[in-house]
């Protein structure tokens, strides 16, 4: 049955997780993410799932990694301070290729910053927060409906590529209420388990990069370690070739599938003088501002990035070709801006609207920048 609800973003996220088959949440409550935990604490037991309040966020990340190896789709939700604590285990999840979903409802930072105010200061931490080479998948919702949809997609991508996936929302999208339509016919990707333990290698150097994943206690004798490992999963830390093969496979399984993973929306970018680019909550301000600028006769278009990582560089390059100027809007002092600048600077000037303090940039602030930049 299709349901129509008027609910908070964080509740929609929890409902998306349930729909996607999440059956374990382990977390430590933190504003502005707490409603994700609160909703799942109520709902998970009803569907045979488990909710565990952990002692901290390090343990939360550890618990969902372990649970995922037990064969259960698992998630946690936090905000910047907790996301920082999770980084060590996030690296472990990448090298062990553990499908997990981590939701970061971003708030003013650094440190404990502004608990009840919105920001996008963690978008580079999602990319580079743990040490070493890895390729995260990051989804960034702008509405309550997208928060639901992207959470479902996060679980699907985690299973499809056997990798951690981050949903990076913020206080505005987390606490905003809107209508959300919960459809029954959503595509849900199940855990792919190996068929037979005979000759099975959990970390085989397969061409598409992704191996089926056994669950502990189901007949597969396997070893899982954060150390560089061979195809059996056994430590092999001093052979350069083993390390190169492993880490490149883990990165390439994401990078070679950017066509499948990357998701952006472009409006009126063809023949635009100015292209405005944003992701997450400020997209809402951007769209109003672009419509107002178009009403003034300006040739302005916009790009909404739904997946900041892996960075959709080729699409952004193509879609900004006609523009003389690109304006990036972020609720930080410039993070994804430099990635966009890297891609477009050969044909356009880049400008930044860097809004911190906790409030969405207003359409008028963006319109003023569009008028100031002028185009051509």
């Amino acid at each position, binding site marked *: 049955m299709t349901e129509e609800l*008027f609910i908070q973003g964080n509740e929609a996220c929890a409902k998306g997780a349930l729909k996607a088959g999440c059956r374990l949440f382990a977390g430590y409550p933190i504003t502005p993410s707490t409603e994700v935990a609160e909703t799942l604490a109520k709902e998970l037991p009803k569907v045979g799932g488990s909710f565990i309040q952990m002692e901290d966020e390090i343990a939360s990340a550890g618990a969902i990694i372990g649970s995922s190896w037990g064969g259960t789709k698992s998630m946690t939700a936090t905000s910047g301070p907790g996301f920082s604590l999770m980084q060590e285990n996030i690296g472990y999840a990448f090298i062990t290729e553990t499908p997990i979903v981590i939701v970061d409802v971003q708030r003013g930072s650094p440190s404990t910053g502004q608990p009840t105010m919105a920001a996008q200061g963690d978008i580079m931490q999602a990319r580079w927060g743990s040490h070493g080479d890895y390729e995260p998948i990051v989804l960034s919702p702008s509405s309550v409906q997208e928060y639901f949809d992207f959470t479902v997609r996060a679980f699907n991508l985690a299973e499809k590529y056997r990798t951690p996936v981050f949903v990076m929302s913020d206080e505005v999208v987390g*606490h*905003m209420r809107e209508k959300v339509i919960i459809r029954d016919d959503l595509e849900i990707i199940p855990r792919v388990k190996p068929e037979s333990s005979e000759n099975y290698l959990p970390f085989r150097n397969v061409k598409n990069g992704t191996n089926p994943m056994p669950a502990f206690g189901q007949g597969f004798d396997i070893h899982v370690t954060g150390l560089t490992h061979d195809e059996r999963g056994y430590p092999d830390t001093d052979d350069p070739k083993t390390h190169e093969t492993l880490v490149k496979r883990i990165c390439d399984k994401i990078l070679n599938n950017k066509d499948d993973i990357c998701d952006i929306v472009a409006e009126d970018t063809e023949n635009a003088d100015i292209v405005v680019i944003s992701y997450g909550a400020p997209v809402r301000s951007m769209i109003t501002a672009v419509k107002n600028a178009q009403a003034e006769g300006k040739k302005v278009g916009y790009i909404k990035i739904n997946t900041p990582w892996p960075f959709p560089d080729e699409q952004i390059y193509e879609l900004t070709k006609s523009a003389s100027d690109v304006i990036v809007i972020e609720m930080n002092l410039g993070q994804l801006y430099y990635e966009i600048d890297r891609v477009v600077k050969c044909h356009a000037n880049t400008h930044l609207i860097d809004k911190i303090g906790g409030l969405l940039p207003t359409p008028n602030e963006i319109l003023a920048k569009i008028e100031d930049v002028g185009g051509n």
Partner: protein
Amino acid sequence: MRREIRIGGFGGQGILMAGVIIGKAASLFDNNEAVQTQSYGPEARGGASKCEVVISDHEIDYPKVQNLDIFVAMSNEALIKYIGDLRDNGTLIVDPGTTDIEDVRDHIEAHNITVFEAPAGKIAAEDIGLLIVANIVMVGAITKFTEIITPDAAKEAILDSVPPGTEDKNIAAFEAGYSL
């Protein structure tokens, strides 16, 4: 048409619930578009609190207030803090039990603001016998004075939002506010 409403008061008055009911009524039962947002401090109760709802027959992009049409003040602090955001010819609804309209009289006259008084706290305490339903009385008053939602949608949203067993008191509170 886009209409923007803000309800301001302090934590614990049920301001958020009032906004959620208005948003739910507009979105699910009047079949309009609606977005409800809020701002609050880290305190659980007593701190300044405000709740905004944007209602439109078109898709809503920017979810916050740009040009405030309706301001509902349930505390004097909120009245003084936010009166300046109300547009010229806008609508102000106050609870005279918790606000002093004389504090903003000059501003009201200078900007041609229409004022309605809704003694929500008094009605809730004396007529319904339950001060905590003052917010629902105010939803009734808002529905009556602004027609931003229909009374049927408001009642459906109230029944969909309040704890089981409290339906009758809440509907009575709504009706009391709606008959002002």
